[in-house]
């Protein structure tokens, strides 16, 4: 009986080892594991955000995975205490101005894009770090060119969930940072049914190396005739909103940057492009 128990123990250990990568595994294994964990785990977390505006945001983040994929609630603990809810039906903002709804946009995941990150980033991992008392592996993605930002991610060694993130510019300055200070994981809820990104025909787009057109939406609720295009290299995500404006109406052309998020407005004939993404604004202008 004791021998049988030992054998069972060895088998279980082998199975567990096969499912849970060790720190010695390559960065791809960890990147894919994080991608899966953040789409399939139910959890509650407290998140501290420094969005580069000199202020701190404290958020209670809850995720539950439903049939349509992860649903999240962001409850701002500072200021007005707005609540932002994302379900399969769309995004809702609940706050002092009333409860307002934003229609469903593209539902995407990094997935296959993660496999080729090392073509455009130098990827290093350090398995010996800790975040909020949890063992964490630090993954550093340093861009090989100045047209994109770097990203540091701390990945929970036990669950694969991201615990901390930092976006850095070419001078190694931190543009924004986010960190989990409390994490309660309620378990695996099954892999999300969200489809993998579809690489579309990129004819007509001038994209930086590694970027792909991964999604689009033919309508943007609230803005008649607008369309949304999504471009990503797995690290930076860019939305290009295309719209035509009534005669004599223009969009404020002064772009802005907050933290690592930049916005520029471009125009081509009668089409206006409101471009938004985790990239240097110059890159958005050049490639938008």
């Amino acid at each position, binding site marked *: 009986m004791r021998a049988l128990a030992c054998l069972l123990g060895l088998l279980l250990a082998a199975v567990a080892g096969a499912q849970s990568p060790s720190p010695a595994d390559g960065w791809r294994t960890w990147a894919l594991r994080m991608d899966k964990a953040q789409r399939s785990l139910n959890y509650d977390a407290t998140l501290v955000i420094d969005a580069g505006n000199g202020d701190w945001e404290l958020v209670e983040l809850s995720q539950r995975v439903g049939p349509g994929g992860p649903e999240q609630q962001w409850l701002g603990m500072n200021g007005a205490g707005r609540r932002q809810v994302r379900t399969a039906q769309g995004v809702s903002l609940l706050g002092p101005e009333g409860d307002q709804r934003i229609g469903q946009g593209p539902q995407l995941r990094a997935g296959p894009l993660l496999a080729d990150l090392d073509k455009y980033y130098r990827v290093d991992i350090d398995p010996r770090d800790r975040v909020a008392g949890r063992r964490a592996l630090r993954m550093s993605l340093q861009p090989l060119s100045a047209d994109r930002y770097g990203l540091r991610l701390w990945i929970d060694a036990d669950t694969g969930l991201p615990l901390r993130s930092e976006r850095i510019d070419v001078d190694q300055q931190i543009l924004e940072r986010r960190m989990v200070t409390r994490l309660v994981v309620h378990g695996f809820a099954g892999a999300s049914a969200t489809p993998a990104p579809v690489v579309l025909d990129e004819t007509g787009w001038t994209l930086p190396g590694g970027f792909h057109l991964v999604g689009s939406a033919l309508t943007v609720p609230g803005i008649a005739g607008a369309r949304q295009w999504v471009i990503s290299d797995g690290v930076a995500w860019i939305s290009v909103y295309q719209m035509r404006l009534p005669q004599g109406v223009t969009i*404020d052309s002064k772009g802005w940057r907050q933290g690592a998020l930049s916005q520029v407005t471009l125009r081509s004939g009668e089409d206006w492009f409101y471009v938004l993404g985790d990239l240097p604004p110059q890159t958005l202008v050049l490639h938008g």
Partner: protein
Amino acid sequence: MSEDIREQLSALMDGELGRDERAFLLRRLEHDAELRSLWSSMHLMRDVITHRPGGAPLNLADRVMQSLAEEDRQIAPLSKSTSRSWRPWLGAALAASVAMVAVFAVAPDASFDSSAGYTEVTPAPRAALPLGVPGPIAPSLSNLGVGVQPVAGERSTIISGVPTPITAEQMLLMRHGQMVDGAWWVGGTQPVYARPDQRLLLPVSATGSDRP
């Protein structure tokens, strides 16, 4: 009554709402007599248009509430309508809604300054894009089932202030930030972007904004 809620009601009639969205709307119908009245009117109109024998009974609202309560318990799929001919009734109102939200700020020149680079400034009120997002939704989170639940049973502590409708720009930001499944580290995901008054913006100037 917003056009958005009318559209949701029409979708409910057609059985086109998802489970969660239907639960939201049913909860709202429970507590909103005006909405129930509108619901009755829409049913009456549809019945007239589709020439249903006998039309709708006058006490339809109460009967609808009764059936909705039953439906809320069962969470069963709604039957699909066989006719959409009543839809044009909403068309004009929806068009008006779209026109109403298309309020843009007028900028004198769409080109970028070629040399200014970045300058830190105190954020100023901006109205770059139209006021967007028509209509409220029911705030109930209790019917989400396996979905998102209120945190520790608490509601947001709302500090009263001057209500400010969400702008289209905020809508585009949140739409952008919520598109990647579960990835809270992607830019634009946090509610801070819904607070433009607290945003410290670095204006961007660049060349080549107007493409030929």
